[in-house]
């Protein structure tokens, strides 16, 4: 029923394909990641929205900017009383800096600038921000800078557009309806990271099989268990599982769910997802089940893969559309209990 193909350590046509198989992978929180600020950070951000720099006093009289909820030295809670707060700057002194010759696309400034720690007048600690000085030669430790403010301020560290050389103060553009705004209690921070992922030999060989309508698994050379989708190591033994096994597209539905909640990329509801234990495999794989009314789906039902037509196949797991009932008698529960 099954046949083995060469081990991945040997050269086979599938392993020598040289196409650039690196895929773009994006890690992103759509709309941004929302965090509550708490009262201390919220008060500072509310100050930024108003175009003011606020610091918080510690019990020994130091002024921390940006404020922290607890004193780094004594761990005392800070900022509970109005008297604990004081306005600082806005001008300040650069305590250290570093030049950014090639800004990133997600930097506020699209021209070379400096990151600097800036100690606002009246504060005992320094704030990290960008200094738009025009050139590296214009930057010095000890230089005087002041903030420039964005017109659209939301209560974010980015309400400061950047710092620029000189005493200032910079203009604080008026914010519409500012007096009616609630204090800042939430921030929404967008982030996006890009990756170029290479699937690796095991996954490539699996996908090459799927391009031809062939499901491939790997067998542990120690315990003999067959894993599909394939993996390079047997999770039970911790040893290589590198012997390839061609598997049939028939099996038993070990368990399933009827999905009534629509989701992006999913079939129209109601749709059925389930675990299919392919004949000859030792682990069930997640798949869609279709061509059957949802009321008739059963654990133990024999199923067979339904593939996209040969001419339309791509190098994708989506070639296998879903599993459909074969009409064979159901498999008794005891025969697949171990895999549920």
């Amino acid at each position, binding site marked *: 029923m099954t046949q083995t193909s060469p081990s991945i350590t040997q050269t086979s046509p599938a392993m020598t394909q040289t196409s650039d198989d690196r895929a773009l992978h994006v890690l992103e929180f759509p709309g941004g990641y929302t965090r509550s600020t708490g009262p201390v950070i919220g008060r500072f951000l509310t100050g930024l929205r108003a175009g003011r720099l606020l610091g918080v006093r510690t019990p020994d009289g130091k002024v921390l900017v940006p404020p922290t909820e607890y004193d780094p030295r004594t761990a005392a809670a800070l900022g509970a009383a109005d008297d604990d707060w004081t306005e600082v700057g806005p001008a300040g002194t650069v305590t250290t800096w570093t030049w950014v010759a090639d800004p990133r696309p997600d930097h506020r400034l699209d021209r070379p600038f400096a990151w600097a*720690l800036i100690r606002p007048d009246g504060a005992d600690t320094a704030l990290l921000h960008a200094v738009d000085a025009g050139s590296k030669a214009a930057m010095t430790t000890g230089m005087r800078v002041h903030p420039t403010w964005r017109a659209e301020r939301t209560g974010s560290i980015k309400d400061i557009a950047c710092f620029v050389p000189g005493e200032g103060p910079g203009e604080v553009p008026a914010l519409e309806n500012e007096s009616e705004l609630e204090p800042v209690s939430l921030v929404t921070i967008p982030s996006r990271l890009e990756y170029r*992922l290479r699937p*690796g030999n095991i996954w490539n060989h699996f996908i090459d099989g799927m391009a031809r309508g062939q499901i491939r698994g790997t067998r542990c050379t120690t315990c003999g268990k067959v894993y599909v989708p394939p993996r390079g190591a047997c999770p039970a033994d*911790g040893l*290589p599982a590198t012997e390839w096994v061609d598997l049939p597209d028939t099996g038993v539905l070990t368990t399933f769910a009827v999905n009534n909640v629509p989701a992006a990329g999913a079939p129209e509801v109601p749709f059925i997802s389930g675990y299919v234990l392919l004949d000859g495999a030792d682990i069930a794989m997640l798949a869609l089940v279709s061509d059957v009314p949802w009321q008739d789906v059963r654990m133990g039902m024999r199923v067979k893969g339904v593939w996209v037509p040969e001419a339309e196949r791509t190098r994708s797991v989506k070639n296998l559309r879903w599993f459909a009932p074969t009409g064979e008698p159901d498999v008794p529960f005891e025969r697949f209990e171990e895999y549920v």
Partner: protein
Amino acid sequence: MRDIAVVAFAQSEHSFTDLGWTEADLVMPLVNRVLAATGLQRSEIGFTCSGSNDYLVGTPFSFVAALDTIGAWPPIAESHVEQDAAWALYEAWVRMQHGDIDTALVYGFGKGTVGDYGGISSLSYDPYYVAPLMPGDVGMAGLQARALKDAGFDVDPDPTPPPPTDGAAAVLLAAGDVARRLCARPAWITGIDHRIEAHSLGSRDLTGSASARQAAQHAAVGAGPVDFAELHTRFEHEEPLLRRELGLAEQAVVNASGGPRKADPIMATGLIRIGEAAARIHDGSARRVVAHAAAGPCLQHNLVCVLEAAEPAGPAEPAGPADAVRTAEAGED
């Protein structure tokens, strides 16, 4: 304290391009090597602890895939830190102090070649005040380099990052007689400690590292001569600062292995420092070595480990809660 030693160390042939290695591909050969070196079976390991960062490859729970390599079924005693695996080693060392297990496997792995470490590192900083600005690890390091230059250190104020690296490392720890049985020259951990500094970069003195100094004192670095030191210096300006804070003599050889500037498989880089230092004991070329691991911007968090060829002296001292390891004072006795 129980006497615990590094009895085996293995690291990958690190790569500076993505070869499509999975977590299992990276880790399994190393686990096999430390087991082969000691003759242990997977089933004989008392505790397993790993260090990695899912953001490096941008997939949740990517550390779970590496568990395929250690035979985690039936279930084993296992833990993970989302940190450099040097801290996984610390957790394993603490776990072994319970006294009921004699061996622990520690591994770490990282794929630095597939992602954007400037962005990834930024997301690990303060989410309100710093991360939105995306300063990145190089920007943060530059602030410290300039501060050191201004303070009179002979350093380049414009740091460059180490090459993005894919790689992994594994270490096997063993206690007492088991260590003596598994290894001809165990590298005994005679001091280990880690300390962290304030969260706000602008409230720290970047021309010093109080946390590195404190960790070194508690690990008793100064209690004897240091033959070799392996320091987690991703940037060149960090070496003179750490030499001073760890109290290393000028003649102490630092990063004979090439150090993180040559290969930086993030999340394994710190563990490799411990492994490389231990390997000098294993091969007989050193009697007393120091390993250091760092995390956070501008050396915010520092771990210091002293390893020695000589058996730890005397019976175990009763340890107070604030005195989990031999202190500098005790070490000088």
